[in-house]
C-alpha cells in the first residue's frame, strides 16, 4: 500500500507550496487516477509519491509518504527502485542513453538491481510482449518515434515488476492505439496486485482503467471517489478537466431531449466502441 499522510511539498526556492495537505491511499491492485488542470500539482504529486521529491530534487516535504508501511524518507533510493517505479511524460529523458538496442534499454532497470540474467531476459521479453513492441527489440532507442520511445520507457518500468507504479501522463505522446496498449498493460499489472497511480489529462483512459479518481487543484485534493462518480461530476469542468467522451455524450443527449433509454443506449454503445478500439 502507498499512502500520503498530510503531505505538503514546496520546491527549493519557491514561495508557495506545490502540494498542500494531501491525504491519499493507494491499495494493492488498485488504479488511482489523478486529474487536474495544467500546473495543478499532478507532476509534483507523482514525484512525491515515488519518493523522488525531495530526495532527488531538493525542496521541503511535510507529512509522511509510506510505501508498504515504510517511511520513504528513511529508505535508500535504490531500494525504493525495487518497490516503486516512476515514469515521466517526456520519453527522451527516461531512456538511459547508453544502450544500443530496445531490448537492452528495457532490461536496464532489472540489470541495475542485479536480477539474475535469465530472469532479466524473461522479464524483458514479457514487458515487450505486454506492449506488443517485440519487433522493436533490435532497434536503437534513439531512432524511434516519440510514441515508440514512450512505449519502450513504460516497458522498462514494467520489467522492474514494481509493486507500485507511478506514471505522470504516460500517454502524452501516444496515439489512440498506443494509449490502449498502455491501458491494457496497466490493467494486467494491477490484476497481478500492483498498485498504480496515473496522472492523466485523458479522462477516457481513466474511465476504463481507474478504480478511483482524485481531482487536484492548486496543489490540494479538491475531491475524490470511485472513478465513475468523479468523472461524471459537473465540478470537473470548473477545475479545467474535460469529462470523458461518454459523459459528454450523455449530457449532449440529455440536452437534446433524448429519452433516458436512448441516452443510456447511446452512452453504452460509445463506451463499448472505446473499449473495442
Amino acid at each position, binding site marked *: 500500500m502507498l499512502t500520503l499522510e498530510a503531505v505538503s511539498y514546496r520546491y527549493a526556492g519557491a514561495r508557495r507550496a506545490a502540494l498542500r495537505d494531501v491525504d491519499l491511499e493507494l491499495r494493492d491492485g488498485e488504479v488511482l487516477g489523478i486529474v487536474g488542470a495544467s500546473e495543478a500539482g499532478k507532476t509534483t504529486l507523482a*514525484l512525491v509519491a*515515488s519518493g*523522488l521529491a525531495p530526495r*532527488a*530534487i531538493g525542496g521541503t516535504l511535510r507529512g509522511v509518504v509510506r510505501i508498504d508501511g515504510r517511511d520513504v524518507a528513511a529508505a*535508500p*533510493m*535504490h531500494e*525504493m*527502485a*525495487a518497490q*516503486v*517505479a*516512476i515514469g*515521466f511524460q*517526456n520519453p*527522451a*529523458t*527516461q*531512456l*538511459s*542513453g*547508453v544502450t*544500443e538496442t530496445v531490448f*537492452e534499454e528495457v*532490461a*536496464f*532497470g*532489472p*540489470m*541495475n*538491481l*542485479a*536480477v*539474475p*540474467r535469465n530472469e*532479466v*531476459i524473461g522479464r524483458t521479453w514479457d514487458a515487450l510482449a505486454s506492449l506488443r513492441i517485440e519487433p522493436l527489440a533490435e532497434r536503437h532507442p*534513439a531512432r524511434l518515434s516519440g510514441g515508440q520511445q514512450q512505449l519502450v520507457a513504460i516497458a*522498462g*518500468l514494467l520489467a*522492474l515488476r514494481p509493486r507500485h507504479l507511478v506514471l505522470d501522463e504516460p500517454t502524452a505522446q501516444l496515439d489512440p492505439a498506443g494509449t490502449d496498449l498502455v491501458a491494457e498493460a496497466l490493467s494486467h499489472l494491477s490484476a497481478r496486485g500492483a498498485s498504480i497511480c496515473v496522472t492523466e489529462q485523458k479522462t477516457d483512459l481513466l474511465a476504463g482503467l481507474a478504480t478511483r479518481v482524485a481531482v487536484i487543484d492548486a496543489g490540494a485534493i479538491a475531491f475524490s471517489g470511485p472513478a465513475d462518480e468523479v468523472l461524471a461530476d459537473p465540478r470537473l469542468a470548473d477545475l479545467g478537466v474535460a469529462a470523458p467522451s461518454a459523459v459528454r455524450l450523455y449530457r449532449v443527449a440529455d440536452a437534446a431531449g433524448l429519452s433516458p433509454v436512448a441516452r443510456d443506449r447511446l452512452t453504452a454503445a460509445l463506451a463499448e466502441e472505446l473499449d473495442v478500439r
Partner: protein
Amino acid sequence: MAAVAVGGFVGPLLLVALGVVLPAVLAGVIGQLARLTLLLSLPIAISAVLVNVFFFPGGETVLLRLGPITATAEGLVFALEILVRILAISGAITLFYLTTRPAELVVDLERRGVSPRVAFVASASVQTVPAMVERAGQITAAQRARGLDTEGSAWRRVRGIVPIVGPVILGAIGEVEERTMALEARGFTRPGRRTLLWWPPDSAWERVLRWAVALAVPVLIVARVAGWLTWLP
C-alpha cells in the same frame, strides 16, 4: 609505447608492421586505417620533419642550403625516427578506433570490475555526441524557419551560432535533472555489480596475445636501457 621504447628506425617500423598493419589486414580495415592514419598524423609529421631536417642541433652533413637555413643528414635520420614513432602511435589509436565497438569496450570493462558509473560515463559520452548533433540540426532548422540567417558573410554566420548553441546547451542541461531522476528510479545508484546480459567473446589465444603484448613493453624498455638493441639501425 613499444615503438618509443625500441628506438632507432627499423625496430619501430617492424613493430608498426607487426602490431598495426598485420592486424589491420586481418581485420579487413587496412584501407581505412591508411587513410585515417595519414589524416591524423600528417600535420604533426610535416612540422616534425621540417623542424628536424632544417634545425637539428649539431647536424654536420649538409644536404641542402636554402639561404640562412641548412638541411642536414643527421636531422633527416632523426626526423625519420620521429616519423615512424608518430606513425606507430596514430596507427595504433586508429586501429583501436576501427576495430573496437564502444559498447563492447564498456561492457568488457564492467565485466572486469570497473564501476558501472564509470562505464556509464564512458558510454554516455560516446552516445551523447550524435544526440547533440541531431538536436543541433533540429534547432538549426527551427531557427531558420523563423528567419535566422546562417549563411553569407563570416559575421552573419557567427551571429547565427548564438541562437543555435544557446538552446542546444540549455536544453541538454534542462534534461539532466529528469534524466537523473529516471536513472535513480531504475536502480542505477544501487551499489555493487549489476547483471550483464552479454559480453564480447574472449578466446584463449586472444588472452595469450594480450598478455604477450603487455609483457613485451617492459621487456623492450629493459632491453633498450641495457643496450641489448644497439644492433638495430
